[in-house]
């Protein structure tokens, strides 16, 4: 699984970092999210799916 956050769509709701803190990093400046490591470890896949389903802006893009 690969994951990335669309920076044009993310608005800094921070729910992804609550669901999968190991995967998503929040900007100190505005709280917008990014996934520094694109490849998702198997044990984190469900948390990433949860994060994607929880994003109000639907900014998280997963490719399986």
């Amino acid at each position, binding site marked *: 699984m690969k994951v990335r956050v669309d920076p044009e*769509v993310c*608005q*800094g*709701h*921070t*729910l992804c*970092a*609550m669901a999968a803190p190991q995967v998503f990093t*929040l*900007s*100190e*400046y*505005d*709280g917008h999210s990014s996934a520094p490591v694109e490849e998702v470890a198997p044990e984190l896949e469900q948390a990433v799916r*949860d994060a994607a*389903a*929880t*994003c*109000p*802006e*639907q900014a998280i893009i997963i490719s399986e």
Partner: protein
Amino acid sequence: MTSVEGDKEAPVHYDRHSPDYIDHFDDITHELHSKCPIAWSDTYGGHWVASGYKEVFEIARDATLLSNDHDFRGERKSYQGITIPSQPGRASRGGFLEMDPPEQRDYRRILDPYLSPAAVARWTPMVEDLTRASLDERIETGTIDFVDDLANIVPAVMTLAMLGLPLVDWVIYCEPAHAGVYTPPDSPDMPRVIAAGMAMGQRLAESVIDVRRNRWPGMVDALVTGQVCGAPISDDDIRDTVILLIGGGFDTTTSLTAHSLEWLSEHPAERDRLRADPHGLLDSATEEFLRFYTPAPGDGRTVTREHELSGKRLEEADRLWLSWSMANRDPSVFPDPDDVKIDRKHNRHTSFGLGLHRCIGSNVARSVFKTMLSAVLQRMPDYRCDPAGAVHYDTIGTINGMKHLPATFTPGSRLGAGLDETIAHWQKVVADQRLAEPVVRGAQANDSVA
């Protein structure tokens, strides 16, 4: 509601300011969802009401389609901002929430570094101590009003601290910030509310001058020294922005906290569950209370061009109400939407808005709410709210709020200094440690974002 076509030929009659709206909210929401999730209402001069999640999601994130502009001078298209009914004759706008890009973007660029998760985290010790002191004032008596004695106080002091304004002034700002929202325009109380509002405005103007002179760190300093569209910010815009930050910072967090405490009192088994597992449940419970109570229930917009939405034709200059509160009850996104489930997953609620106007204070709201809730659960675990004493706002059209929430509990012990002494202590810490500085400075923070 009678007609269920929900178009301009056969409008619905949706009046969220009516006194009985609060009692019929669930039914009205279900009816609109099932019949016309985007509906033209004949109220307030005529406006669209977007209640379906799909509809709100589709249009709210497009700031080129929906304008927030409040063009009270008629210099552009005379759009009327985010309040429905609009306020003709009002010669001011609601800060950057009534602006569009590029102006709006510059305000967010200036203020985001004061309100990011990293910035908010630095205030945690103060928020915890203010909460402790507020509870200490009541802990030995066995009685408390969760609004007057806690939920009104901590958000107010925190907001002033981040603004860089004197913390003791929270009492001057608090009453008008709340009463200005919940007092109906024709109420006999209105003159008193207006007078309190003017005292607040006066104090604010003096404080802005003090910040200019002394360069006290904080968001007022950022506004005083910042540039928007290449120019300094006018005194009027500074004032309006601060009023927006106060309006966003006070009433909403107070409302969320009061409603949540009331609900937990009515559901003691769920309260026990939450108390036993904050690590597992506090985050999800917070998002669920946000979804269910939606303290800021919606915002108005103006449609900028023709757009087809779920079979309805939106036209340029149409007014539109984005109902966050009704979208948050959409069963296609939230199973059993009218039930509070403190472990709800995939809770993509719209309570902080969608798109580039996402509430700038969302990280503050979550942090202050969680701190207050956790402290009450820990120090007053058996509190019981008095249903006869709970006072909700008469109208929830603007903010879904509460005025009073009295409760009783088994008395406990004070842990530290009282509220006034604690506020004085933190005023000194704020000054000495320059706590209200933004977390990030430098090229990235100052570059203009196109």
